Each structure stands twice: as C-alpha cells, then as structure tokens.
C-alpha cells in the first residue's frame, strides 16, 4: 500500500508537472528541487484529490509539506483516517 501511494504520487508529478522519474526522490523538495510554485500547488492539490479520491483543498496540513516524503506521509495519514 505504502509503495503504491508513492508510485501514485510520482505519477502525479510526472503527468502534471513533467518531472523526470529519476528526480522523484523521497527527500526532493517540491519547490526547490522540483521547481513547483504556488500556482502549481493549486494544481497539485486538484491532481491529488482526483488520484486518491480525497478532499484536501482546505486541509491546513498541506502548508507544512515540503518534500515528496512529507506528501506521502500526509496521504497515508489521510487514508488511515478514512
């Protein structure tokens, strides 16, 4: 399940932001390493909502996400809550 979530998150970054697979390391900073900006984050939220069938647009925890690892932990938390 855990690997599957990471794979699905990576798919979002490849499909929506055209980031190469080899750059998608858990410690990669979404902004500094992967180059997303505040507008991309809006689209990241939309893409994650679609991918994982979750509602995260107003979830305050999003603001603390910096790395891909943070993101997968957040999605896992959400899945465990539901």
């Amino acid at each position, binding site marked *: 399940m855990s690997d599957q979530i990471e794979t699905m998150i990576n798919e979002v970054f490849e499909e929506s932001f055209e980031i190469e697979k080899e750059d998608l390391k858990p410690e990669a900073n979404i902004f500094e390493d992967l180059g997303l900006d505040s507008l*991309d984050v809006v689209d990241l939220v939309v893409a994650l909502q679609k991918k994982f069938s979750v509602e995260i647009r107003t979830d305050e925890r999003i603001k603390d996400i910096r790395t891909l690892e943070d993101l997968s932990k957040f999605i896992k938390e959400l899945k465990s809550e539901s």
Partner: protein
Amino acid sequence: MRRVVITGTGSISALGNSMDELLNSIENRVCGTQQMPEWDKYKGLQSLVGAPVTLPDIKTIPRKMRRSMGRMSLLTVFAANEALKSAKIEHDAITNERYGCVAGSTMGSAEALNDTFETMLPDHDLSLLSSMSFFKCISHTVSMNLAHYLGITGCVMATSAACASSLQAMGTGFELIRYNKQDLVLCGGAEELHPTVTGSFDILFATSTKFNDNPENTPRPFDKNRDGLVCGEGAGILVLEELEHAKKRGAKILAEVVGYNTCGSGSHVSQPDREAMIQCMNSALMDASIKPEKIDFVSAHATATLQGDTEEAAAIFEVFGSKTPVNSLKGYIGHTLGASGAIELAASIEMMNKNTIYPTLNLDDVDDKCSMIYHVKTKLKKDIKFILKNCFAFGGINASIICKKYE
C-alpha cells in the same frame, strides 16, 4: 508622424506552420477544409467541416510558460517565434519598455472555457478547477501569454472584436509606433477551432452545411453556390517597427503600413452594412493620404456568407470600381476569425512583394450580386505598390489597413 514598417511575419494555419508552407499551399490551390467526424455528437450542429491546425511539439515551450496557454496561445507562440526569426530579433532582445505586443481573439480559449464549465457545472463544484483555467479563459489570454513568453515590458494590449480582432491589433500597433508611444510592437491574433465556435455561427445559419461530404469545395467566397463560412484556426503575428529603428538594426523591410481605420456599423449586430464598409475603406485611404486608384489589390474579408460577400462586393465596387483586383483567402484556410486579419495580411504582403495575386479558391461561378468587382480567378502577375486588407466582424466592427511596398 513617424513611419511604420513591417519587418517580420509568422503564421500557423490549416495550411502549415510557417509562411512558406502557407504560401506554397496557396500557390498549389490547396484547401485546408476537412471533415470533423467527432462533431457528430452535437445535436443541431449542421456544419461538420473545419480547417484545423496540426500543432507542432508543444513541449518546445517551457512548462511554466505553457501551463497558462490554451490552444490559441500556443498557436500564437509558434507564429510569434516565426515572426521574430524572420525579423532577425532574438528572444532575449525583446524586453524593453519601448517594445510591446497587441494581440487579439474573439474570446478566451474555447477549449478551456468548455473544459472549465464541464468540470464545474455538473456538481457546481469549483474544487477540481485548475489554477490555470482563468489564464486560458480570459479575453486577453493571447496577448498576456505572448508577453509572458517573450518577457515583454512595453505596452501589452488585447483587441477583442471577433473577426476584426487581429486587424485592430495591427492598427493599434501602427498607431502606437506612429505616435511615438512604442518603437516595436508584435501585432496579430489567434483563434481556435472548436464545435462551440462553429456552433455559434451555425445557429445563425452562417456556416457552410452542404459540403460535409466534400469539404475541399467549401468555403466558396463570392461564388454563386456559396453557403456560408467554414471555421478555421490559427495565428498570425507581424512585427511592426518604426522605420528608423528598423533601418538602424539593418532589418529587412517587408512593407510599410500607411493607413488604417476601424469603425462601427452602428446598425445591426450581425447584418453586414455596405455603407459602414465604404466608410471604413475610405477613412483608411484618407489616413494614408492616397486615392482609391492607387490601391493595386484588395484582400477581402469575404467569408462566403450570402449577405456578407454581397455587401462587401458592393462596398468595394463603390470605393474602387471594377478594375482593382480582389481576392479572398478564406477558401484556403477557412475563416480564422480573430486571426484572419493578421494571417491574410501577412500572406498579402508576400503577394505584394512577389507581384503576384493568388486567386480566390472555390470561386468557380461568380454570383451575379458580387460580379461588379474584379475577381482574381487565376494567378495574376501585376506590379503591386499598395494593398488594402479588410476585416468586417460580427457585432458591426469594421477594420481596413493599407500597406505599401517598401522601395
């Protein structure tokens, strides 16, 4: 007043992704109209033909530039790249407060508008909308994206007047330079082919509907058997520049812009008005300080609607009589709406410089009501010094521009 010249042209249309491809296809009498089989699903849509573009690889545009671009902005970037290349201007040399862009379209990206409403309306839910929807849907999406892509810091403006959009952009750029507000302006416009766009003309019975099985025979400007317009798509961008500025950098000058006018018909939202057309052309001639007999070639708006072509033929006859050659390029690339003025002016300038006027495609039998003017039906060699280009838009917005060969 300062003199304004054109130093670069670029286009993308159903007949290719460059001016050379467009001119070669016109030379070979190629019609870009195709069947649009996927439009079958739209109930009530009678016109199932269009003139679509085959887009080049869009990934040549960096993602952060591209993400805010709907199809019409992508088309614009390809046309602008060609225009700048032909003007021999590097991308990194365009950021200057005296360099601007004026580009228009009928509306924002039709595809993006449609996608936005399809996403939002079923459940009245905004949460799945992309952050980029707004930037693709806005009326100034073409000029905004072009300015962002090129780093333009001078005047950025959008002209939105349906089929006169890009000719108004040309005229606005002309005036910005003429009156010393800018030194160089990229001017033009774009439009995209979409069933909702064709549909907007279709419900007004303005589209071609009888040639769905033989699309290459439509549209038929000025022809007895014309039955309406065919929507196309594309973009045209021209580089307008102050004469001394162009000479100083050793630019090749393609033409000089000498006169322009835009006016309202003030009468009806859709019915063409020959008196307003006459006024528009006469005012452009007055602006250029030349008499009608100086014009060697008129590039007509002529979209192949029954009434529009008749009114324009009557207006051209009134201003120019029956000896000035007239053509329409709609038979080749369809009606590219907001892009038509720029694409067709760029092609007409090429014709002027080659002293060659290409014929109106699909004009086999001139309609009696349009027969009073001189229709170009076969390739015509002629010494051309002045050309006039018309755009007469729905909404009663008219525009005419006059260019002179630079010698």
